[in-house]
């Protein structure tokens, strides 16, 4: 059952990612990206990481991508016009991509040999554990990140508030 | 109409066509809004979708036939328009209707004012999302319309006033109905105010919105409650009294804020004052005929027409060819619920008006709309249009 679900949602994730690259319209691309994120969330769920799955949806799909879509709508961006592109990309693109994928597969296989399949349900999932880790072991990075975000927010406010 | 205004290329604004089919334009008003986000940069009203050529039509009608046209000008206060036209013709004729007719005219005009203000209140509140007020207001308006029906046989297009008096003596139970109505109506105004006046959202939506200064208001020809809301105490019923308004004791509500909320408060107070005027009119209603003693102008009663030769001849003459009005021009203004409603009537001595011009208060008030909404949000446009209280039939005529 898990395997079937995994295959289905992995397929959706890959398909959506391909569609993201293929689409000419920014809204379609954004929607495909949301699809990828949704599928990834399900994969997390299958791994037993409910919290990460939920956060994936809330933060990425629910907040960040909404802003993306919002911006695209606001700018009223139209479909992209395909350009002829460079010769380099046309003839070297796919071979190079294939090379990259091969390398990745080789690396992954080296890391996790096929006879040692990752098991479901052993992921650091429960909310409590994550909370505990965040506020004990990773307290400093956590706080530093929040300060960083605060600075970013203030910068955004200053930039947005500046009158032309 | 004019072509859709387009912003210069490269502009960061969007042109939004609000209307002529739009729930909040109160008819077929078209506003071309240039928006920067949700902020209105420019507002250009386009009117004329309801132009029916009433002024031209009137030139082909007899003096007394034109009364029915005046109903159609402002369909929310037909009796005010009836009165204004009839007063203009009477002024041309030098005719004074008997006191009972004048008092009845005042009474009916104030009822009309209530009728019009109730529609304004309901639609204005509905535009701002308070739907229930509309149904409350229309409940009371229904009673008023029923009273109009008892006197004139019509709910909206009353055509009840005649040159020299009224069409008929009102039926006997009419005064009882009015008395009953004004006994409970003030408490209904309290109900409306309970829903809106102190409501934080309502205040937030209306206070400080659509501001116009007194100087701008006068310069743009603003009249009526809109002008009184900017602090100009100018009500024709007080300053240039007509139809014995000078014999009534009432206050003219004036506020100085000049925003939508001030207009709202002025109209609410006006409703209370109108109720007082109606009560006084009922109280001191003079006895006597409702028509002037001018047999060549006023149609005789049916009974006399059937029994007296002379009356029959007058009746025949008035109905077939009408009556003649001495040459001249008059500009008769009355205080309609929306402002100064005025009729400019020119006679060349024949049985038809040579020229009838209608000074519609909504037409002038609408000119001030761009001034009130530019630089504000699109939601404020709705609030301001509602607060000006336009009637498109009157704007376009």
């Amino acid at each position: 059952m898990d395997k079937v679900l995994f295959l289905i949602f992995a397929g959706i994730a890959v398909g959506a990612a391909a569609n993201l690259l293929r689409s000419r319209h920014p809204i379609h691309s954004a929607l495909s990206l949301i699809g990828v994120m949704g599928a990834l969330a399900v994969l997390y769920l299958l791994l037993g990481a409910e919290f990460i799955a939920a956060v994936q949806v809330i933060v990425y799909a629910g907040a960040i991508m909404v802003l993306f879509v919002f911006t695209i709508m606001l700018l009223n961006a139209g479909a992209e016009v395909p350009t002829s592109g460079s010769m380099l990309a046309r003839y070297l693109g796919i071979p190079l991509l294939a090379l990259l994928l091969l390398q990745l597969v080789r690396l992954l296989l080296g890391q996790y040999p096929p006879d040692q399949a990752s098991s479901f349900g052993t992921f650091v999932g429960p909310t409590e554990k994550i909370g505990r880790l965040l506020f004990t072991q990773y307290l400093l990075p956590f706080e530093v990140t929040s300060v960083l975000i605060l600075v970013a927010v203030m910068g955004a406010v200053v930039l947005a508030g500046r009158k032309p | 109409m004019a072509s859709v205004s387009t912003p210069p290329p490269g502009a960061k604004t969007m042109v939004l066509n609000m209307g002529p089919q739009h729930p909040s334009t109160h008819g077929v008003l078209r506003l071309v809004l240039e928006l920067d986000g949700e902020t209105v940069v420019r507002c250009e009203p386009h009117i004329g979708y309801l132009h029916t050529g009433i002024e031209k039509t009137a030139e082909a009608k007899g003096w007394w036939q034109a009364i029915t046209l005046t109903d159609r000008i402002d369909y929310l206060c037909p009796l005010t328009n009836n009165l204004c036209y009839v007063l203009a013709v009477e002024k041309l004729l030098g005719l004074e209707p008997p006191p009972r007719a004048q008092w009845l005219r005042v009474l009916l005009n104030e009822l009309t004012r209530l009728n019009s203000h109730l529609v304004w209140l309901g639609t204005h509140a509905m535009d701002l999302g308070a739907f229930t007020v509309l149904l409350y207001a229309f409940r009371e308006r229904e009673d008023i319309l029923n009273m109009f029906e008892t006197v004139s046989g019509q709910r909206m297009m009353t055509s009840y006033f005649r040159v020299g008096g009224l069409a008929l003596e009102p039926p006997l139970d009419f005064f009882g109905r009015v008395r009953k109505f004004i006994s409970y109506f003030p408490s209904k105004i309290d109900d409306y105010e309970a829903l809106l006046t102190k409501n934080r959202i309502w205040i937030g939506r209306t206070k400080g919105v659509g501001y116009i200064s007194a100087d701008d208001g006068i310069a743009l020809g603003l009249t009526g409650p809109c002008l009184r809301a900017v602090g100009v105490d100018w009500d024709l019923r007080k300053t240039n009294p007509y139809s014995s308004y000078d014999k009534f004791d009432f206050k003219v509500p004036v506020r100085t804020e000049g925003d939508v909320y001030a207009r709202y408060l002025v109209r609410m107070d006006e409703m209370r004052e109108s109720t007082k005027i109606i009560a006084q009119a009922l109280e001191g209603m003079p006895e006597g005929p409702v028509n002037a003693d001018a047999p060549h102008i006023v149609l005789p009663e049916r009974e006399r027409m059937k029994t007296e030769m002379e009356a029959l001849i007058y009746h025949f003459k008035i109905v077939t060819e009408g009556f003649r009005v001495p040459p001249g021009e008059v500009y008769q203004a009355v205080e309609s619920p929306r402002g100064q409603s005025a009729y400019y009537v020119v006679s060349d001595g024949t049985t038809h008006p040579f020229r009838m011009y209608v000074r519609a208060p909504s037409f002038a008030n609408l000119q001030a709309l761009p001034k009130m909404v530019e630089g504000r949000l699109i939601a404020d446009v709705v609030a301001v249009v509602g607060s000006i209280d336009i009637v498109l039939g009157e704007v376009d005529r």
Partner: protein
Amino acid sequence: MDLTILIISLAKIAVVLTVLFTCVAYVVWLERKVAGRIQNRWGPHRTGPFGLLQPAADFLKALFKEDFTPAQVQRPIYFLAPFLAMTLALMSIAVIPFGENVTIAGRTIFFEITDLNIGLLYIFAVTSLGVYGIALAGWSSGSKYSLMGGLRSSAQMISYELGLGFAVVGVLILSGTLSLRGIVNAQSGFWFGIIPKWYIWPQFVGFLVYLTAAFAETNRTPFDLPEAEGELVGGFHTEYSSLKFAMFFTAEYTNMITVACLATLLFFGGWMAPLPWAWVQHVPALVLLGMAALMTRTALRTYRLERRKSYFAVPGLAGIVGLIGLAFLHPVFAAVAAPMFWFASKVFVFLFLYIWVRWSVPRFRYDQLMHLGWKVLLPVAAANILITGLVVAL
């Protein structure tokens, strides 16, 4: 995975969805009826007794209306949007528990589709996606009014999602779990033997923030700016007709039910009875029998006054209600159904509040809405979290 579990799950989903759709239909009916009474008119009363068949009539009408697609729409997304809106609205019901789990004859009956240990997060995840249905509908309609409705709604939902999330953190701190069943179970018991230990008391501020944010999140008056008919004609659904419009409509009312359920679960002790005494268990029976009696009275009076042909419909209805009421007198049935009765009653109160507010107040302006969301609700909610945290820590 066990096949029976799958079948049971599917069956449960089917049952819950059926009940949910019925509820949505009758919330619409309730809305019209209550609005009618508020505005001194009758509301629907022609179709069936008390207009109870009106939802069916509405559905048929929506079904047979012309499904008009304007020429300027962005096709696939225009069709996708209403489905998205409705599906996402329906999804959140999956983790809502309706009653206490009961064990009968060795088999435990779970009154929910699934008890997720992060139930609350799941609901927030799903509702945060709900904005796409509206935003995409507004964008793909190719109309300026729709676009503005869509934009407003995206901005509004992002803003109030935060307030909503912050508002419930206090509850989470108190209960220490994200599971909705866990949160309800943490609220059992009474203080001083009379005041129920519901989170409404310690979390009153949080509840107010939640309530306000929930109004905004479901686009209800006074926060119905995305569809503010006075300004934007119909907002995001201006260009939709027929069943596609009905889907948005269903989504809106489903969301209403969801947030009402959530408020009941988080702040009002879910299915717990409100009073500690033993006789409280008879209240459901009393209420239902009373309703049956009232209906019978109406039926008799209607028959006497009008001799209407439909006079047996109302007594029939009264009979059904009465029978359910009598069933409550049986202890086993009461044990199963009483929690559901309390849950449903609390949700009903919320829905009524929703409707009441909608027909009483005007609408906010866009900037006022943003002001309220960011400058009032968010700081208040944050302060509430801080204080709750401090109190719990001490």
